[in-house]
C-alpha cells in the first residue's frame, strides 16, 4: 500500500522559513502555533545515529525543518505514539499513513502531546484568536467557515498538527511546504514504493529518520547536510 512520506534535503535547505510562512498561510493556524518550524543547532546531538553526517569541515551548525513525522507504517501494522495515547480515537491513521485529528472528538487531554517525541503537536488556545489586540481580522475570521471536523478550524482546546495538507493531497497536490520550497529541498511521495522519487533519494543519499531511538518509524526522511 501507498505510504505517503516526505524527504527533506538538509544540504539544499537554506532555512528561509518559506515552509513556516506558507504553512501558516495555507492552514490558518493561530498566533504562535507552528505546524512547520525550524530548529537551528550548533549540532543537534542525539538526533541521529551517526553524528558524522552532520559534521562540517570547520564549524558545525545545521538548520533542521520540522513537522509532524506521521510515524508508523500501516502496512506493517505500526501505529503512531500519539495515536496510541489518544483516549477518544480523535487521532487516527489513514491507510496512506497520514496521521489525522478529528477536532470533534478531541477533548484536549494533551496525552498525545506528551507522547510525541518531536514536539509536533500544540493545543489551540482560547486566546488570542488574532495577532492584533484590536480584534480578529477578516483573514482570521475565515477559519470559522471550515466545518467543525476540519483541521483548519482550530477550535480552542483541541490539539492540532501538520496533516501533510491532506486537503491538498486529496486534491492530487503536494503539501504546500513542498510546492513552495524555494530551494527545491522537499519531496513528497510513496515511501513504500521502491521506485518512487522519494525512495530513490533516500536510498541514493543515505536518507535518515530523526530520533531512531524512539522506534517510531517516521514518514519524514532527511538527507544529510554534507
Amino acid at each position, binding site marked *: 500500500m501507498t505510504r505517503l512520506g516526505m524527504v527533506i534535503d538538509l*544540504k539544499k535547505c537554506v*532555512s*528561509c522559513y518559506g515552509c513556516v510562512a506558507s504553512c501558516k498561510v495555507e492552514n490558518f493556524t493561530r498566533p504562535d502555533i*507552528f505546524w512547520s518550524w525550524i530548529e537551528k543547532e550548533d549540532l543537534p546531538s542525539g538526533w541521529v545515529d551517526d553524528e558524522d553526517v552532520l559534521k562540517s569541515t570547520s564549524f558545525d551548525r545545521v*538548520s533542521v525543518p520540522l513537522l509532524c513525522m506521521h510515524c508508523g507504517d500501516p502496512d506493517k501494522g505500526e501505529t503512531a505514539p500519539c495515536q496510541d495515547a489518544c483516549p477518544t480515537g480523535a487521532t487516527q491513521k489513514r491507510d496512506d499513513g497520514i496521521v489525522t485529528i478529528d477536532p470533534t472528538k478531541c477533548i484536549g487531554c494533551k496525552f498525545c502531546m506528551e507522547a510525541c517525541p518531536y514536539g509536533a503537536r500544540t493545543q489551540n488556545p482560547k486566546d488570542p484568536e488574532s495577532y*492584533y489586540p484590536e480584534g480578529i481580522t477578516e483573514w482570521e475570521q475565515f477559519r470559522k467557515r471550515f*466545518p467543525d471536523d476540519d483541521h483548519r478550524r482550530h477550535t480552542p482546546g483541541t490539539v492540532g498538527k501538520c496533516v501533510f495538507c491532506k486537503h491538498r493531497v486529496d486534491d492530487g497536490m503536494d503539501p504546500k511546504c513542498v*510546492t513552495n520550497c524555494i530551494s527545491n529541498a522537499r519531496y513528497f511521495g510513496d515511501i513504500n514504493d521502491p521506485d518512487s522519487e522519494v525512495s*530513490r533519494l533516500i536510498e541514493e543519499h543515505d536518507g535518515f529518520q530523526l530520533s531512531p531511538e524512539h522506534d517510531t518509524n517516521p514518514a519524514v526522511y532527511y538527507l544529510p547536510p*554534507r
Partner: protein
Amino acid sequence: MSEPSPSWEPLIDQGDYRFSEIDTEQDEWISTICNGCYAFCGAKVHVVDGTVVSAKGDPYSPNGRGRLCAKGQAILGGLLHCDPYRVTTPLRRTNPKTLHGDPGWEEISWETALDTIETNLRDALPERALMYSVPVTKLCNRYSKSFMAALGARGMNHAGGRYCASAIHTVAGMNSGTWEPRPDYEYADYIIFWGSQHGASAGHCYNSSVRHRQKAWRDGAHVVCIDPVHNMSAEKADEWVPIKPGTDTAFILAMINLYLNEWERYDEGYIREYTNGPYLIRPDGRYVRDAETNKCVVWDTEAGEPKPYDEVSPDDMAIFGDYSLDGTTCKTGLQLIREGVSEYTPELASEECDVPAETVSRIAREFVEHARLGETISIDGHELRHRPATIYYLQGINGHNHGMMGVMGLEILLNILGIRGAVGGMIGSGTQNLSSEAPISPQHQATVHEETGHLAISPPDRGLWPFHEDMYPLETPEEIETYPLSNLPGIAHFPEHMMIGSEDYWGLPECEVVINLGINDIVSYGNTEEYFEIMKEPFTARFAVHLDEAADALADIVLPTTVALESSYNLPWNMQPHAVGTGGFAEPEYGFGVRQPAVEPPGEARPVPEVLLDIVDRVDRIGTNNHAFNEIFGLEAPHRLDPDEKYDWEEMLDMECRSKFGDEYSYDWFKENGPLTWEKEVEEVYWMQFIDHRVSIYFEEFVQIGEELRDLFTSKDIEWDYSDYQGVPQYKECASEHEPDEYEFYLINHRLSFNSGSWTNRIPWIDEINDMDWEAYNVVMHPEAAGRKGISEGDTVVVENPIGNEREGQVTLSEGIRKDCIAAPQAFGRKDRENVDPIGNEKGFRVSDMLMPYHTGPDHWREYTDVYAGTPDMDVKVNVSPGGDSEQ
C-alpha cells in the same frame, strides 16, 4: 563539469487549490507580482468572497517559478491587507515636529492633502528644491524616476542605498553590463562566496538564486565561503574561511600575485583579445593615445613599434614590459598590475587577513585548477570558453571605505583567468539581445567604444537601471547643480541629509520639499538626532502603509498607500537588473508580467503612482511627465503618451504592454493570462563571447575621473579625497583599524532573507519567524569573547561606537563567528510611539546607529566612506559591555 540531474528539476504546475469544504460565491486565483524585495517574483493570490486567503508563486514566472519566500507568503497571504494598524486616511500634523513625540495627527481629506502639497511644491519648484526618497523594496525605480523627472526634482535616493554595493555596480556595469557578478550556476564547479550570502540568505532575486545555488552544490560544485561570520552562506559551503573584516583586498591581490608572478598561470589569449591589459599607459596613469585617431595604443612585437590597438593582431600585442615612447617610459596595463601586486605574498595576506598563508595559496590553486585554462565546451553547436570557477562577491567586499580597491581586484582576478563571460564562470544578469525570436530587448544594447575598444553599454530601459547614463564611458562630472550626486562616479548613494543639508555638504541651496515614498529613513540612517535636526526643516509629504517613527517625527502630511495586493505595475523581468535569477541557463526563460489589484485598498488608501499623477497634474507637469515616461519606459509609436493628455496609471501600463508586445498583449491580457515567457538562446546568455570588445583590468577611467573631479571640486571649493582614483588596486586599511584599543570588536551586519528593510516585521508572520530564528533579533557573539567580558547567553549588552553612540542588544552565543567580531542583521530596532504598531516594535538591534560616517558631520564623513561609491565603512569598531539586566 557537474552533470545536470533532471530528477532534481522544479515541480511542474500542480493547479490551483479551491475550497470544496465550504460554500463560496467567489473562489479565484489572481495573477500578480510580489513587492517583498526587488526580485518581484510572479505570484498568484487566492481570493474567496472578497477576502485574500492565501498566496503562491506563479509556476510560469521565471522569477520564483512557483515559489514565494517567507516575505512573499507574508506580504501576499492576506493578513497585511486587513492589518488594523494600516494608515487609511490622509493625516496632517497639528503638533510641532519632535522625535518620538505625539504629532497630533488630524484626519484630512485627499483634497486638502493634495492642496497643501501643491502649494508647497509651487513655492519650491523654481529653485528645483525637491527630493525623492525611494524605497527599493516597496516600489521601483521605474516610475519614481519618471515622476522625479516630471517634477524637475533635484535628486532621488534609496533608503537602502547607503548599504548598496555601489562600487560593484559601477565596475560590473561598465565591464559586463550587469548589476553584479552573477555565477553561471548551471555549469560552475568551484564557487567562492566572498562576503556574500547569494542563494543562501540574501542576494538579488533570492527566491530563484537559492534554487540555482543549492542545486549546483547538490550536484557537486565545490563551495567556499569567505566571511567573518558563519551565516547561512557558510552553512551551505564545503569550507568556511573566517577572514578578518575589511582585509579581503589583501587576499585578492595575493591570488593575483600568485597567478601573474609566482605561477604564471593566466589566460593569455583572453587578456590579449578581451582586455586593456596590452594597452600602453603613460607615467601619469593615462592611456597612450594615437595622435591622429586618439585610439589607445599597444606595442606591436612583430613590428617593434607602438600602433593603435585595432591595427595589431592580438597575438602580436605585448602584454608585459616597459616601452620607450618619445623618451618617456610607458608600461602595459598588465605590467602595471603585475608590479602593483608583487608585494602581496600569501604571507602578507595571512598577516592582514588572519587566514593561514597555506589557505590563501590552496584556495588560489584550487580556483585556477578548476578554471580549466585553455578549455572549451560545446553548447548547442557553439564552441565556448569554459571556465567553471567563479566568485560571487557583494557587500562584504564593497562595504568599506576602500571598498572599490577590492572590487577592482576581483574584476582583475576574474579577467586574467578568462572567467568573465565564460561558461561556468561569471555571466552576470545582463544579456545582449542576439535572438531574432525575442519579443522585447533584454537588459542592454552593447556596442564598442571606438577609441578605447571598450564595451559600451546602453540600458534600453533607463527606468530599470539606476544608472542615469550609459555604463561606459563614465560620465564626465561637469556640474553638480542639477542632480548634485547622481553624476558623481559610481552611483553615489549618499544619505538624504547630505542632500537636504546640501549647503554644508555641497554648497547648494537646501531642499524645501521632500516627497518620501514610504521609507523609514530614520531606521536606515541611524544617527537619529542629527538626521532629525536636518530633515525636520523641509515640508515633507510622506506615503505610508503604517505610521512609524520617521513619519511621526518628520512628516507634515501622511498619505495612506497600498501594498502589492492592492496595486498595479509592469515587470519586464528580463530587464530588471536585480532579477538576476534570470541570468544564465539555470533559469531558461525570460518573461514579462504585471501586478494587478486582487482586492480594494483599505479605507482611502491609494497607490503611489496614481497620487503622483495627481500631484504632477496640479503643478502643470503632465506634458513633462508623459515625455519622461515615454523615454524611461522606452515606449514607441503609436504607443507613446500624448503630452497633452492625462492618463490614469493603468492606461500608462497598458501603453507599455502594447508598445512592447503589440496590441494583442494589452495590460488586461496580462491580468487575465499571467506572464509571457520566451526561451533564452546561447548567444544571449554567453553574449560576451559573441561580441568583439575589450574591458578594463587597468582602470584608466578612474584615474581620469579623479582628475576631472579635482577640477570640478576645486572650482566649487569642495574638499575631496582623491587618493582612491587609481588604475591598479592596493590594499588599504579600513578606518576602523585606527580606532582606540578599547573598541575591540568589529560589528558585522548582514541580511536575513525573511526580512526586507525595516517594514516586513510589522507583519505578524514575519515577526513570529524572527522570534523563532536564533539570530534575527539578537547580537551574535563568540562564547570565548563573551566569557571574557562576563556576558552570558541571553544577556542584554551595551554596544558603543568610538563616537560614544550606545545601543542595547540581546546576546546569543555561537562559535560561528570570529572572536573579534559581533554580528547583527540590518534594519531592526524600530522604535515607534506606543500603540502606533506594536508588532515587531523595539525588537532587534539597530546596526545603523553604529555606523561612523553618519555621526562625523561634513568634515569627517569621507574618512569612513568609500568616496567612489558613497558606501559607509561597515566594519565599525565597537565596545561591548554587560547591560542593565545582566548579572555583573
